[in-house]
C-alpha cells in the first residue's frame, strides 16, 4: 500500500503546473472529408514542445505568453505551419490536405517521423493500413496480422496463418483489441485469415515491450486496432473482388459534420462454386466465413462524442448433412468521450465480447454436438490529463467473464457430457504518466493493480498423483472461489542523445488470468479458455528491454536495435497422455513450469522516396522448464526460431504503378522426432530421447505483388492487384513424416515432407468512390 501512495504522490507532484501558462488547443481534420486525424503531430517550431492529436483529433499544448510558429504534420498530408500569438488560451482548428504524391501512401507509420526516437515506447510497432494493402500475401487477402509477422520480435504461428508469437510468448498471450473489445479468436478458417478487414480498420499498433499501465490482461503483447470513423461530410465506399473473398464498405454522414456511419462486410465464396458442382450431394456443403464491422459516431457538442462500434463474424463449414463446424466472434463497444477542460478528458466504454464454437456430427450410427464459448462484459473508464510536460492516464475497469468450456450431446451416451461453466470478475485500476523531464530525458511510469476473482457456482476437485479425485469443494452462486491481486509496475526511460538518436530502457510486468487449452498449434474448434483456479495460478511475466534508436537524413531512415529478456511464470503444459477433450478433470493432468526468452532485434526502415520498406532481424532463444517433461531439463519451445529475418521492399514506378516484394527466412521449428524404435504387440513404437531436440529445415519464401491504379472516372477509382505467393516455389516443410523406402522392407523408413503452399498467384480488383 505504501508503494501505491508513493506513486500517487509522485503523480500528483508531476501534475502541479506553474502559473501563467496558456493552452493552445483544437482539432486536426482532413480538409476534404472532415475526418479527425488521429496521431497528427503538432509541434512548436524550434522546440521539442508538442503534442499528438488523440483519437478525437484533438490536441492541446501549454505555452507561456508569446508568439509561436506551430507545425501541423501528418504523414500522407501536406504539413501546415501557422503563426499564433498567445496572450490567453487559444483555440485553433486546422484542416490538412492530402499530399498529391501517391508515394506517401507507402509510409509505415502515421505518427511523427521521429516518433521512434523521441517517444518512451520501446518494442512498439505500428503497422499502417496502407502498407497492409500493398504487402503481398497468400491468396491476395490483405491482412494486418500477416504484415505484423514481418516485424522484428514477431513470429508467424504457421505457414500462411494469421497467428503470431511475440518475443517468445504463446499465441494466447497476445491481447487483441478491436475498439477496446478483446477478440478471443482472431482468425477465420482455423487460422488462415485474420478477423481484420483492411477496409474497416485504421492503423494497428503492437506493444511487445514497454506498455502503458492502461493495458493489461495478457502476458506478451497488446495489439490495438481501431475501426475507422466514417466520413462526416461525404458518402463514399470501397470494395473489392478477390480470389478468396469479396468486400464492400460504405460510409458517410448521418447528420453532416456531426455524425457518421461506417459499415464494412466480407464474405468468402468457395462454397458458391460447389453449388455449380454436378454432384448434387455437394450442394448442401458449406465452406465460408463472413464478417461485418460497423461504427456510428455522433458529436453531440464540442465536448462530447458518442460512438457505437463492433464486429460480427462467423465461420461455417458443413459437409453434406453429416459434419459441421461453426464459430465466431461478436463484439460491441459503446463509448462516450467527454472533454472537461482543455486538459482533462474522460472516456467511458462499455464492451461486450462473445466467442463460440460449435461442432456437429450426424450419422446414422452416431450423432454428436459439441459447444463451447466465452462471454465478457467490460466497463472501462480512462481519464486523461495533459499539460506541457505530462500525459497522465488514470482509470480502471470491471469485467465479468463467463467461460463455457464445452458440452457434448451424443446418442451414444444416455446423458450429455457437460464441463462446468466458470465465472470470473476482473477489476483493475491504473495510473500512468508520460513525463518530459527536460530536453534529453523522458520517462513513462505507471502502476496497474489487477485483481481477479473466481466466482461460484462451481465445484473444484483435489487430485492425488494418480489423477484420482481425493476431495471436492462446492461453491455457491456468487461465492468467491479465489482472489488474486497483482501489482504490475511499468517503467520506461528515454535518454535523448541528440536530435536523431536516443537510448531507451524499460521494465514491464504483466499478468494474465486466462489460459488457453489448446491441443495443437493451429486454432481448433476444440480449443477453449479457462480462468485461473486455486491450482492454476495467474501467469506472470517480467520483461527488461533496452534499445538504441537512430534516424538518418532528417528521419527518412529509421534504425533501431533492441535487446530483451523475459521471464514467464505459472506457464501450463500437459502431462503426457492428458486428454484435453471435454475432460472435467483436466487440471489433474496440467503441469506448471516457467519459460524464458531473450533476444536481439534489429530494424531498419526507409520512409520516403519512391523506394521504401524495411529490414528486420531477430536473434532469439525461448525455452521452457517443467518438472515431469524432458526429465526436468530446459527445452526449446516449438517456435524457438533462432534466426528470423524479413525484408519488405516497395517501389513506386509512377503514381499509378507500384510493386512490392517480401522475403522471409527463419530457422526451422524445434520439433520432437524419434531416435530409435522397438517392437511391442507386433508394431513399432517410437523411442524419444529429447523434447524438441530436432530442427525442421529452414523456412524461406519470397512473395511479390504489383498494383496498378486505373484512371479516375469521376469519383470512381479502381485498382488491379496481382500477387504471387512463394514466387520461387520453395518446398517448405510443413510436416515431416516417415514412410517405408519400398514395400519389401517395411522397416526401413525415409523422411518425407509435406509442403502446404507451392507457388500461388492471385488477382484482385479493388475500387473506391
Amino acid at each position, binding site marked *: 500500500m505504501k508503494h501505491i501512495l508513493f506513486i500517487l504522490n509522485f503523480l500528483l507532484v508531476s501534475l502541479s503546473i506553474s502559473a501563467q501558462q496558456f493552452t493552445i488547443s483544437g482539432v486536426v481534420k482532413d480538409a476534404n472529408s472532415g475526418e479527425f486525424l488521429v496521431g497528427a503531430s503538432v509541434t512548436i517550431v524550434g522546440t521539442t514542445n508538442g503534442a499528438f492529436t488523440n483519437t478525437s483529433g484533438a490536441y492541446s499544448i501549454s505555452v507561456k505568453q508569446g508568439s509561436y510558429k506551430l507545425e501541423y504534420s501528418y504523414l500522407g498530408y501536406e504539413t501546415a505551419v501557422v503563426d499564433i500569438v498567445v496572450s490567453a488560451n487559444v483555440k485553433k482548428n486546422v484542416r490538412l490536405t492530402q499530399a498529391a504524391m501517391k508515394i506517401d501512401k507507402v509510409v509505415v507509420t502515421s505518427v511523427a517521423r521521429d516518433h521512434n526516437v523521441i517517444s518512451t515506447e520501446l518494442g512498439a510497432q505500428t503497422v499502417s493500413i496502407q502498407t497492409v494493402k500493398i504487402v503481398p500475401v497468400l491468396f491476395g487477402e490483405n491482412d494486418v496480422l500477416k504484415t505484423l509477422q514481418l516485424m522484428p520480435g514477431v513470429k508467424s504461428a504457421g505457414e500462411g496463418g494469421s497467428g503470431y508469437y511475440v518475443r517468445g510468448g504463446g499465441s494466447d498471450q497476445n491481447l487483441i483489441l478491436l475498439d477496446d473489445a478483446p477478440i478471443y479468436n482472431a482468425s477465420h478458417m482455423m487460422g488462415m485469415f485474420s478477423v481484420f478487414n483492411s477496409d474497416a480498420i485504421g492503423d494497428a499498433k503492437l506493444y511487445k515491450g514497454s506498455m502503458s499501465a492502461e493495458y493489461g490482461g495478457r502476458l506478451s503483447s497488446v495489439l490495438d486496432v481501431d475501426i475507422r470513423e466514417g466520413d462526416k461530410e461525404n458518402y463514399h465506399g470501397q470494395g473489392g473482388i478477390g480470389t478468396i473473398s469479396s468486400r464492400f464498405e460504405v460510409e458517410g454522414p448521418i447528420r453532416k459534420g456531426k455524425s457518421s456511419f461506417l459499415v464494412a462486410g466480407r464474405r468468402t465464396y468457395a462454397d458458391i462454386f460447389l453449388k455449380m458442382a454436378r454432384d448434387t450431394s455437394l450442394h448442401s456443403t458449406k465452406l465460408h466465413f463472413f464478417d461485418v464491422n460497423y461504427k456510428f459516431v455522433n458529436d453531440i457538442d464540442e465536448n462530447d462524442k458518442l460512438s457505437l462500434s463492433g464486429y460480427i463474424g462467423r465461420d461455417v463449414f458443413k459437409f453434406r448433412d453429416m459434419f459441421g463446424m461453426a464459430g465466431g466472434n461478436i463484439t460491441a463497444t459503446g463509448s462516450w468521450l467527454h472533454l472537461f477542460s482543455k486538459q482533462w478528458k474522460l472516456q467511458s466504454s462499455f464492451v461486450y465480447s462473445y466467442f463460440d464454437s460449435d461442432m456437429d456430427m450426424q450419422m446414422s450410427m452416431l450423432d454428436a454436438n459439441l459447444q463451447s464459448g466465452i462471454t465478457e462484459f467490460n466497463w472501462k473508464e480512462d481519464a486523461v490529463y495533459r499539460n506541457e510536460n505530462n500525459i497522465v492516464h488514470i482509470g480502471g475497469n470491471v469485467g465479468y467473464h463467463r467461460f463455457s468450456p464445452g458440452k457434448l450431446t451424443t446418442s451414444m451416451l444416455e446423458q450429455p457430457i457437460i464441463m462446468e461453466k466458470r465465472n470470473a470478475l476482473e477489476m483493475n485500476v491504473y495510473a500512468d504518466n508520460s513525463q518530459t523531464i527536460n530536453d534529453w530525458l523522458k520517462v513513462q511510469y505507471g502502476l496497474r493493480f489487477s485483481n481477479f476473482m473466481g466466482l461460484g457456482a462451481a465445484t473444484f476437485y483435489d487430485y492425488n498423483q494418480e489423477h484420482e479425485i481425493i476431495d471436492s469443494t462446492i461453491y455457491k452462486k456468487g461465492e468467491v472461489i479465489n482472489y488474486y491481486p497483482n501489482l504490475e509496475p511499468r517503467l520506461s526511460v528515454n535518454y535523448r542523445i541528440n536530435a536523431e538518436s536516443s537510448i531507451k530502457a524499460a521494465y514491464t510486468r504483466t499478468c494474465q488470468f486466462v489460459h488457453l487449452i489448446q491441443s495443437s498449434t493451429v486454432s481448433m474448434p476444440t480449443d477453449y479458455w479457462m480462468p485461473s483456479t486455486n491450482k492454476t495460478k495467474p501467469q506472470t511475466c517480467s520483461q527488461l528491454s533496452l534499445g538504441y534508436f537512430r534516424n538518418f537524413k532528417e528521419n527518412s531512415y529509421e534504425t533501431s536495435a533492441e535487446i530483451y529478456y523475459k521471464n514467464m511464470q505459472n506457464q501450463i503444459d*500437459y502431462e503426457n497422455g492428458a486428454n484435453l477433450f471435454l475432460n472435467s478433470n483436466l487440471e489433474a493432468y496440467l503441469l506448471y513450469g516457467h519459460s524464458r526468452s531473450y533476444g536481439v532485434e534489429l530494424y531498419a526502415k526507409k520512409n520516403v522516396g519512391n523506394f521504401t520498406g524495411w529490414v528486420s532481424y531477430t536473434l532469439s532463444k525461448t525455452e521452457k522448464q517443467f518438472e515431469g517433461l524432458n526429465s526436468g531439463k530446459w527445452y526449446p519451445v516449438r517456435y524457438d526460431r533462432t534466426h528470423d529475418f524479413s525484408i519488405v521492399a516497395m517501389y513506386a514506378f509512377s503514381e499509378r504503378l507500384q510493386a512490392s516484394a517480401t522475403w522471409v527466412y527463419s530457422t526451422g521449428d524445434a520439433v520432437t522426432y524419434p*531416435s530409435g524404435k522397438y517392437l511391442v504387440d507386433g508394431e513399432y513404437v517410437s*523411442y524419444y530421447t529429447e523434447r524438441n531436440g530436432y530442427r525442421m529445415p529452414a523456412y524461406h519464401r519470397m512473395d511479390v505483388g504489383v498494383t496498378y491504379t486505373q484512371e479516375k472516372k469521376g469519383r470512381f477509382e479502381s485498382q488491379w492487384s496481382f500477387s504471387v505467393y512463394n514466387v520461387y516455389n520453395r518446398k517448405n*516443410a510443413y510436416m515431416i513424416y516417415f514412410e517405408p523406402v519400398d514395400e519389401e522392407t517395411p522397416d526401413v523408413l525415409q*523422411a518425407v515432407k509435406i509442403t502446404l503452399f507451392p507457388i500461388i498467384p492471385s488477382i484482385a480488383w479493388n475500387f473506391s468512390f
Partner: protein
Amino acid sequence: MDDFEVGSAEAKIVVAATISPTQAQVILSKTTAYLNPTSIPYISGAHVTIAYDDTIVTLHEDSVGYYSLEQQFESQKMYSLSITIGDNFITAESYMPPCVRWDSCSVKLSEYNSWYEFPDSLGKIYEVLAYVTDPVESANYYRKEVYKNDTIYSKETTDDSYFNGQTVQLETLMGFFKEDDIVKIYLKSIDKQAFEYYNTLALSNSSSGMFAAPDNPKSNLQGDALGRFYAYTVDSVIVRFK
C-alpha cells in the same frame, strides 16, 4: 529429404509382457535405429519369473527372446513380473480385473451404400455395433481389438469416465465386408496402468507437425527398460458375413 535426418540413440532393453487367464508371455528385445533398423535384436538367456499370492513361477524360453508359461491365472489378483538380464533387473506389477462381457451386437447394411456405386469387389458397407454394460462400482479400463479375417483391423483403449455404470455402444465399426468375412471383436479388461500405457502410446506415434510434442508412452516397468507388462481378461464376439 536431404535437409533433415534423425539420429540413433543407444539401444535399450524392451519388455513386451502379458498375462491372461491361460498364459503368461514375455518377449525381450532391444531398440533399433529408427530409419535403417537392423533385424530386431532379441534377448536370450534372461531369467523371467511371475509371482502371485505366495507362488513364484518361471517362464521358459521357447525361442530366442520369447518366454512363456501356460497355466491358469485367476482374475482379481496382482501379478509381479521380474526379469534379470545380466546386471539389469526389471520388475513390474499388474492387476487382472474381472472379465466384462459384451451384452449384445448388431449388424446392419449401411445407408451409405446408396451414396456411390461402389464396385462389387469391395463388398457392402456394414455397421457393426457392440454394446456393453459397464459395472458401476469400479473404475473400468478397456482395450478393444478388432480382427478382420485374423488381421488386426482396429484397436482402441478407453476408460469408463464418460459412462460409468451405463449401457453403452462401445464398439462402432463401419466398413466394407464381403461374404464369409469374419470379424472378431475382443474386449480386454485391463488395469489403469495398462490403460495409461495405451492411451499415451496412441499420442506417441503421431509424427504430425502441429500437435503437441510426442513422448514415450507411460510404462509401468521399474528399471532401465521400455515397454509394458499387463494382465487382462477377455471376451469376444464373432461376426460372419453372409
